[in-house]
């Protein structure tokens, strides 16, 4: 029997981590994801005690979080549960809803600033067409980032997450790295 070892979205044994000035970009290999959609006539559930957020919003609970992805649709995140069957667990808590496993379809990059909100805002304004005056903590949106469709989540003033398609993880890392490097050199 072959000795099979899991690799991350970027193809390494361990998640990638890099620092550019005040910004740190970390591949979040442990993040489990599942999408949840209401079906006609079902009651909106509160999985893991989360009050599901409205359009453009993200809400965090104990080790889990939810972001609005479309009408009656949400993506549920669970920290450190990528290797477990998170979708099955969510399905139990969302009776009547359509739940789909998403973990292996996405790559998550956590970007944290050690110098407050400034570097994060500078990076976002380089990369995405989002109105930063209206993108405070608790906001999340899907938008284009170098022609890749990504979710951008504002977890706090100095912490954002970018979720992109796992198949273009390398290109997304390149985009983030290049923008962060240019900010560092400026």
């Amino acid at each position: 029997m072959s000795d099979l070892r899991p690799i991350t979205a970027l193809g390494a044994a361990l998640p990638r981590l890099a620092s550019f000035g005040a910004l740190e970009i970390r591949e979040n290999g442990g993040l489990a994801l599942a999408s949840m959609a209401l079906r006609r006539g079902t009651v909106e559930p509160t999985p893991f005690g989360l009050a599901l957020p409205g359009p453009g919003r993200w809400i965090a609970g104990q080790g889990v979080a939810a972001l609005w992805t479309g009408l009656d649709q949400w993506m549920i995140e669970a920290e450190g549960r990528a290797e477990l069957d998170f979708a099955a667990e969510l399905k139990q808590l969302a009776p009547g809803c359509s739940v789909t496993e998403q973990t292996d379809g996405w790559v998550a990059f956590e970007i944290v600033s050690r110098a407050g909100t400034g570097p994060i805002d500078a990076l976002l304004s380089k990369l995405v067409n989002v109105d930063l005056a209206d993108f405070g903590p608790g906001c999340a949106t899907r938008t284009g980032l170098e022609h890749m469709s990504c979710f951008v989540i504002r977890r706090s003033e100095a912490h954002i997450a970018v979720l992109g398609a796992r198949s273009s993880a390398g290109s997304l890392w390149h985009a983030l790295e290049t923008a962060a490097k240019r900010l560092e050199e400026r």
Partner: protein
Amino acid sequence: MLITHPLLGLRDAQEFTYLGDARLIDRPAPSAPDAEAAFCDYVFLRDNPAGVHRELWYHEHGDRSWLVVTRDTVTHEVLGAELARNVALARTRCSK
């Protein structure tokens, strides 16, 4: 060009893909006696006005909703946008 998304506010038109005339929502009934002629018109005939036009846009890099956008094709001014789902639902209610 910015599109006033009814749920998400002003969004860049680059996030959307364009389909065409919003009359595509009015799909003819396939069981009607004149279905063949109606489908021929539905598939091939479009108005192409210079001025105010209602058209379907898809928020691909966004919440994946279909919108009916009212736009002036001469000035590119966006005059309004509504969820295509609501437009379609309102029409089924009227026709019943």
